Structure formats: structure tokens, C-alpha cells
């Protein structure tokens, strides 16, 4: 039985349906992420799990028991808020001790547990300080320690890394993974930053306009997106309008206007005549001089329209014969050479016959 089950939950605010018949089963010990753009309903769902909002329809079950009658303070679920919500008039230790006090633990037990929590988040010396004396990263860790100290069944995290700068964010991501693995508490993480979701999660539920569009492991979400929205939202993606010419277990033959025939990997249930898009990741597109790479099935000649150099790789925007532009990634592994191609150069782009995904909208 799943630890936390969200069963056909719906929440409406007037004419707007924020959460639309969502069903998700979260396993114990998982790092589970709700991923989606703002307004997709992920935060609303989180608040309903915490108990600050009630579903209009459906149920939320913990260990098989419906949480409907239980107020937030009685649920064994804690939240790390986006603004951290540390109590300004209490020290770090007092903040962390708070849930233990509410649970009626003895003074001795509290002091031991608080000490342990401080060690776990590497803030042993900061116990007597006040929140306003801490940096953003430190506040974040206090919020984490406070949420975990009395071992809730589930920890909810509402975009906790949003306020941190890029480098700190990356560091915290590693720390979060380690923490979750060490403690084993189930994390339900909400974010709109998809690299973060891919890095941290065991499973991701991609949400769009109140619905769960795809629920899977990160590699499948990235490699086998179920539709155009997921492909486009996660990572960068080239989108080419295509129609199915032939479909077989060995692969698809697609017709793209102005480019001709393209070989694509097989997909269940696809029939000739269907229209959709070919989703192609930039790293799957090889780029080279006009007279190279004849061994790849799909190849076209194009012109470099633009390029973006970011140190380790260069992204080329190549204009194809039919006018569409696709992105190709080229690692700048040869030391000392900044670019291989310039704007306006003629190049050959190519990709494997089993690269990309055919998706219906």
C-alpha cells in the first residue's frame, strides 16, 4: 500500500479548477516531485496534503486513512515553506524544538533531538542565534531541520530553493539528496525548475493546468515524454510538425514538410496518417561540415543562423531548407578552439533513426 495516496482530488476556486481529478500514489521513502509551470496546481495540491485547504472532491489518504477530518496540527506531515517561515522571536534551537514541544516531548529528549538535528544540517554552532542573523542557505537548513526533527511521515517542500543563488542552489540540491537518503523520510517536493526536479527525484509528476500529465522516473520523463507539453517543458527540445507515413514495430517513417522523410523510433498505437510532432533534443542532433556524417539516417544541409557559447558547449541554431530552425549542441572539447562554425556557415545536421520521439499534442 502506498504511504500517501491522492485519490481523484479536485479543487475549484470559482470558475477556475486548480486541481482537476488528480490521482497519485506516493511510496514510503520516495523523493517525489510535483513539477509544472506556475498556476498548474502543484502548490494547491501541496497545501491540501498539509491540511490548509480541503479538496472539493476526492480524498487524501495517509497509510490508508482519510485525512479529511484532521486539522494541520494533528497531521504527521510537516512543511518547509518557500519563505522558510522561521519564528523571528525564537533562536534556531527554539525553532527546531517547537514541533517537539507541541508533541509534548520531555525537555531531555528535546535537547538531544535538537542537537542531533543541528548536526545533521551542519549548523552545530548556530543554535543560539536568531533567524535574522543567518544567511539564506542557513535559514533553509534550519527550516529543514525543524520540519524533520520529530520524524514526520511526509515532508512537504514548497519551492524551498527558489530564493538561493545558482551556486548555493546546486550545493543545497546535493545536501537535500543526501539528507533524504540518510533519514529516509518521504519527500514531496514542489518546483517549476525542471533541472532540479530531474536531479533530485525518484519520480516526477508533471502537472499542467490542474492535471497530472505524466508520472514517471526522471529519465523516462526526459527521454520518453508523453506529449508535446512535457517534451517542451522539460529541458530544451526541437519541435517539428510531422505526419506519419508508415508505422511498424521497427520504427516510424514521418513526413516533415519541406524536409522529406524522417526515420523515428517506434511508438505503440501510432497509425499512418496521424499528425503530430517530432520532439528532438539538441544533444541528439549532430552538427558538422557540409560533406560529413553520411552514416546517419536523417541528415540535412542547413545554414548557421545563430550560436550561443557557454564555455563547455556551444548551441547552434541551424536553419533547415524548409525554413524551420533547430538547435544542435556541440561540446567544445578541443581546447583553445572557441567555435567550430560561424554565423552564416553551411553545415550538415544529422540524427540517428532512433533519436527523438513522435508525439501527439
Amino acid at each position: 500500500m502506498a504511504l500517501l495516496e491522492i485519490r481523484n482530488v479536485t479543487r475549484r476556486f470559482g470558475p477556475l479548477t486548480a486541481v482537476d481529478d488528480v490521482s497519485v500514489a506516493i511510496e514510503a521513502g520516495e523523493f517525489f516531485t510535483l513539477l509544472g509551470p506556475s498556476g498548474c496546481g502543484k502548490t494547491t495540491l501541496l497545501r491540501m496534503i498539509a491540511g490548509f485547504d480541503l479538496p472539493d472532491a476526492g480524498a487524501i489518504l495517509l497509510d490508508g486513512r482519510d485525512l479529511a477530518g484532521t486539522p494541520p496540527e494533528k497531521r504527521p506531515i510537516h512543511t518547509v515553506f518557500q519563505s522558510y517561515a522561521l519564528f523571528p522571536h525564537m533562536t534556531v534551537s527554539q525553532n527546531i524544538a517547537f514541533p517537539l514541544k507541541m508533541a509534548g516531548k520531555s525537555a531531555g529528549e528535546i535537547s538531544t533531538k535538537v542537537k542531533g538535528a543541528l548536526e545533521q544540517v551542519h549548523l552545530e554552532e548556530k543554535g543560539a542565534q536568531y533567524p535574522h542573523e543567518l544567511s539564506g542557505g542557513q535559514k533553509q537548513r534550519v527550516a529543514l531541520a525543524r520540519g524533520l526533527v520529530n520524524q514526520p511521515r511526509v515532508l512537504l517542500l514548497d519551492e524551498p530553493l527558489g530564493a538561493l543563488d545558482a551556486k548555493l542552489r546546486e550545493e543545497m540540491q546535493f545536501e537535500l539528496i543526501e539528507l533524504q537518503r540518510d533519514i529516509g523520510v518521504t519527500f514531496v517536493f514542489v518546483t517549476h525548475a525542471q533541472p532540479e526536479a530531474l536531479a533530485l527525484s525518484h519520480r516526477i509528476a508533471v502537472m499542467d493546468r490542474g492535471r497530472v500529465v505524466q508520472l514517471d522516473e526522471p529519465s523516462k520523463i526526459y527521454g520518453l515524454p508523453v506529449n508535446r507539453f512535457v517534451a517542451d517543458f522539460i529541458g530544451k527540445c526541437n519541435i517539428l510538425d510531422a505526419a506519419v507515413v508508415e508505422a511498424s514495430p521497427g520504427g516510424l517513417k514521418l513526413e516533415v514538410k519541406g524536409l522529406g522523410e524522417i526515420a523515428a523510433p517506434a511508438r505503440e498505437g501510432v497509425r499512418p496518417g496521424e499528425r503530430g510532432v517530432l520532439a528532438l533534443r539538441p544533444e541528439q542532433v549532430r552538427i558538422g561540415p557540409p560533406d560529413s556524417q553520411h552514416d546517419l539516417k536523417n541528415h540535412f544541409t542547413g545554414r548557421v543562423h545563430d550560436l550561443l557559447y557557454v564555455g563547455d558547449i556551444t548551441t547552434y541554431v541551424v536553419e533547415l531548407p524548409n525554413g524551420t530552425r533547430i538547435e544542435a549542441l556541440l561540446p567544445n572539447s578541443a581546447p583553445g578552439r572557441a567555435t567550430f562554425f560561424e554565423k552564416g556557415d553551411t553545415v550538415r545536421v544529422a540524427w540517428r533513426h532512433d533519436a527523438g520521439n513522435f508525439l501527439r499534442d
Partner: protein
Amino acid sequence: MTRPRAEPVTRWLVGGPPFLFLFVFFALPSLIMVAASFRYPGEFGGLAPLAATRPGEDAGLTAENYGVFFSDWIYFQILAKSFGVALLTTLVCLVMAYPLALLIARSPKRHRDFMILLVVLPFASNFLVRVYAWMIILGDQSVFLRPINYLLAQFGAEPVSLLFNGFAVVVGMVYVHLPFMILPLYTNLEKHDPVLLDAAQDLGANTWSRFWRVTFPLSLPGIFSGTALVFIPVLGMFAIPEILGGKDDWMVGNMIKEAFLGTRDWPFGSMLSIMLTLAVLTVAGLAAWLARKGTARA
């Protein structure tokens, strides 16, 4: 967006007592006052009963109080004079307050709180004391006036009396209400971004232009707040005209006081109070409307 869960009980527990208290001791008295303005005065003062207990006694409801107000020119004059005094006081306060508020707003942060405290401290003195102080200064015996009158006498001119006239009333009004103009002005001016003035200067504006075209328009919401905080209380004042002014300087407040405590004609006093309330509501509404227009532009 939390769904109310047992919230109604808490709402009434928290908001109920103050609401009840204010309903009984503010809303109800106001309604009684409105009703009183439509009654007859009692024989020995106060209100006449609603039902006549003796033949020939005035009882019940009437609009004659309002009739008196609109028929006798003098009441309207006094109301107009009150507006005049309020307007003059507001303008003088504005002119005096603006430089000070500007100075404080532009001072370094660590000085500002202290400078504002200096503005508020005179507020610590009793209002009557502040009025009394001007009795001393403007009195014929005062250190300030005697040399002036002495000099005037040398030139054969009439000695000047600065007390018990309109001048003293306005001085007193300004003195008592000045902090109320300084504080909102300061609050507004403090929020101005100095970069805007740099930009204006960069684009060719001189000192006056920078003030008139940038600082002043942006400060309009503060000006409106301060105006409301000065104009409205001045309208209702009676103590200052009574202490510093002469019989000619009576304002609406004096008439109301006289009606309630002097002639004990409560219905008339109530009617005057209603008129004053209407005047105040008009001014407040105007100030709020202007403030919204000002901020919409800014």
C-alpha cells in the same frame, strides 16, 4: 485561501467584543443624535418627549431645526467662516511643514528618527497648554508685544492687539495641528527615489523645476493626507476660538457647545452636529478621491 474550518466561531470571538462595544457606544449614539435633530427641545433643556404628555406641549418629530439653519443667514456664515479658518490653517501648515518634512526626509537615515521625535514631542504637551502658551505670547503684557507697541506709540500709531481676534485663532490652530501635516508629508517624501531627481537634473531641470515637476507632484498623496488630518479637526474646534478669539470668532464648534451646555437646546445642537458631520464627510470624500487620482498618476 484556506477554507473556513470552525473559523466563524473564532471570527466572532475575536471581532465580536470590539464590534459590540463600538456599536453601543459609537454607532448607537450617532443614530440617536440623528433622531434627536428631528425632535423638539424639552422644557428644561434636553429633548422633548415623543408623545405629548400635556396639551400644548411640543412633542414628536419635526424638521424645524433644519429650517432654522437654512432660514437664518448667520448659521451659514459661521459654517462658512469655519471652513475659511480650516482652509487658512491648512495652507499655513502646509507652507510651514513642507520645508521641514523635506529636510528630514533628505537627512541621513540615522538622524531621521530623532528629528521626527523632535516633531512629535510637542505633541506630548496638553492641547490646552499649547493654546495657553500663545495666550502668553500674544497677550498685551507679553515680552514680545510690549516693545512693538511701544515703538508703534512712538510713531503715533495705534497699539496692536494680537489676542482675542481671528489672527490669534489661526495661530493657535496652526500651532496645534502642525505635527499632523508634517508626519504624513514626511512619510510620503521619505519614499521618493532620489534617482528621479538625478534623472531630471541630467535632462536639464534646474532646482525649482525639479521641485515643482518631480517632488511636488509625487508628494500630493502626502499633502492630501495631511490636509485631511488638519482640515477636519479644525472644522470641529471650539476651545481655541473660545480661548484665543473674540465673540466674532465663533465657529461651528462653539455653536454646538453653546447649544448643548448653554441654552440646552439639544435638537438644535444635534442638527448642527449633523451639519458638521456632513461637512466633514464631504471633505474626507474629496480628499480620498483626490488622493486616489494623485496616486493613479504617480
